[in-house]
């Protein structure tokens, strides 16, 4: 069979596997990015806790504790591959008597391993999001905070009403990029058997050994997913700049109106 025939054959016989894989990958990447962003905000804020020099020693002690936990967590997770983290998490849980494989065994996509994968990708993404939020906050002019503080707003109010919304808005391109990275990087979760796209491709090819065709298909699917994501981010950017989204139809509408 030629490559194209093989691709056709795979689509005909294994389309379900691919479909499950696509759904799984999309859910992993979106959940990981959004929840990771929230955790990342806490991580960034945790690292930047303001320790007041007049606070009592026990307040200072727990503040420094939080700062250092956040810092060490961020450095360790960003400094090790997600594939290795996945293995340590899965087998660590197993050693402690928690087998993720036992949950929801009959589920087609959202089985126990999938939820293990969600946890791993979320806690991994959180560290990168933490860095993004931190650099976003650094990019906000100090005057913004000063303006808020001069009106009597607390450090907390200033952060959540003035600095953070601006930092996140400015970071949206980078956050979106992290989403695209997650679509691709979720593939490493196959090592613990999460049924995402890459894992499903292996399942599809193990009966017929159309290996090139199999991986060409998922390469194309990954490409389509990332291009779609790019498109969504582009629209989001236009929307945030306060312009109207133009899909290219306005030309037709104008013609109609003239006629």
């Amino acid at each position, binding site marked *: 069979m030629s490559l194209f025939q093989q691709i056709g054959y795979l689509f005909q016989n294994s389309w379900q596997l691919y479909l499950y894989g696509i759904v799984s990958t999309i859910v992993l990447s979106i959940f990981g990015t959004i929840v990771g962003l929230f955790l990342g905000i806490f991580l960034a804020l945790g690292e930047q806790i303001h320790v007041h020099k007049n606070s009592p020693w026990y307040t200072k002690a727990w503040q420094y504790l939080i700062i250092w936990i956040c810092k060490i967590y961020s450095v360790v997770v960003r400094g090790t591959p997600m594939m290795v983290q996945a293995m340590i998490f899965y087998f660590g849980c197993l050693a402690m008597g928690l087998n993720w494989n036992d949950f929801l065994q009959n589920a087609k996509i959202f089985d126990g391993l999938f939820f293990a994968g969600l946890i791993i990708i979320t806690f991994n993404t959180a560290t990168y999001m933490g860095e993004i939020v931190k650099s976003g906050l650094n990019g906000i002019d100090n*005057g913004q905070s000063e*303006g808020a*503080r*001069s*009106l*009597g*707003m607390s450090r907390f109010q200033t952060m959540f009403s003035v600095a953070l*919304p*601006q930092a996140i808005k400015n970071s949206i391109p980078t956050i979106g990029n992290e989403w695209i990275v997650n679509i691709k990087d979720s593939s490493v979760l196959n090592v613990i058997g999460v049924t995402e796209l890459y894992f499903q491709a292996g399942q599809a090819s193990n009966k017929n050994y159309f290996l090139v065709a199999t991986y060409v298909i998922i390469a194309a699917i990954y490409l389509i997913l990332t291009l779609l994501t790019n498109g969504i981010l582009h629209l989001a950017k236009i929307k945030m700049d306060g312009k109207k989204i133009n899909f290219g139809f306005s030309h037709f509408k104008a013609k109609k109106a003239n006629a």
Partner: protein
Amino acid sequence: MKDTNTFKPDYSGPVISVKNIAKTFGTTEVLKDISFDVKRGECLVILGPSGSGKSTMLRCLNKLETPTSGQIFFDGVDIINGKFNTNEIRAKLGMVFQSFNLFNNKDVLANCTLAQRKVLHRTKEEAEDIALANLERVGMSDRIHFRISEISGGQKQRVAIARALCMSPQALLFDEPTSALDPEMVGEVLNVMKELANEGMTMIVVTHEMSFAKEAADQIIFLDKGYIVDQGTPDYIFNQSTNERLRSFIGTDKK
């Protein structure tokens, strides 16, 4: 000490009273032995060359900087050494900055209502009514839903003044409010400030606008190298003072 924890609205002494404050950054002495009083309804203008410590002094007043030594009394209460919620003091001392410092993520109206709601816990309608009244006062009521990036520098500064006024402050601090503006915009901002001064708002203004100092000030302080070199009424400062540094700064020594 208990009675110092509340402000006294019927207090009739100076609104702000600064006693012997000094401020050092590392080994650099920025302010040395500064003392002055500002009475209610008075407009104090602080003049001086760049780097003389004017802005630092103003920032000490609402605790954006903490003086190294000395006392600052606000409504008769020591705000440096007393046990105070700093935010409570800042809410009563409006500040207008050289770089406006309006919230870029909010529109004009929201800039004026945010702190009212968060700090003074006013309801949305109440905050908006007060914001509209103050925006009207500075002539910006037709731009309430504009974004900050869509209005000019002079308009930004007028919104910043309205934002400070919304907090019903006891006094307003202006930190070179017109230094980032072109001459036409300077005029519109100064007009608003003159009106405020005439209406009896207590103001402390750091500026390089001599015309404003002449017209609106009740009292002028001239700072140089962290010291108060000379102080007095506008007439004294501009016409009678014999201080050489002051005369060379305001340009009256050539005549």
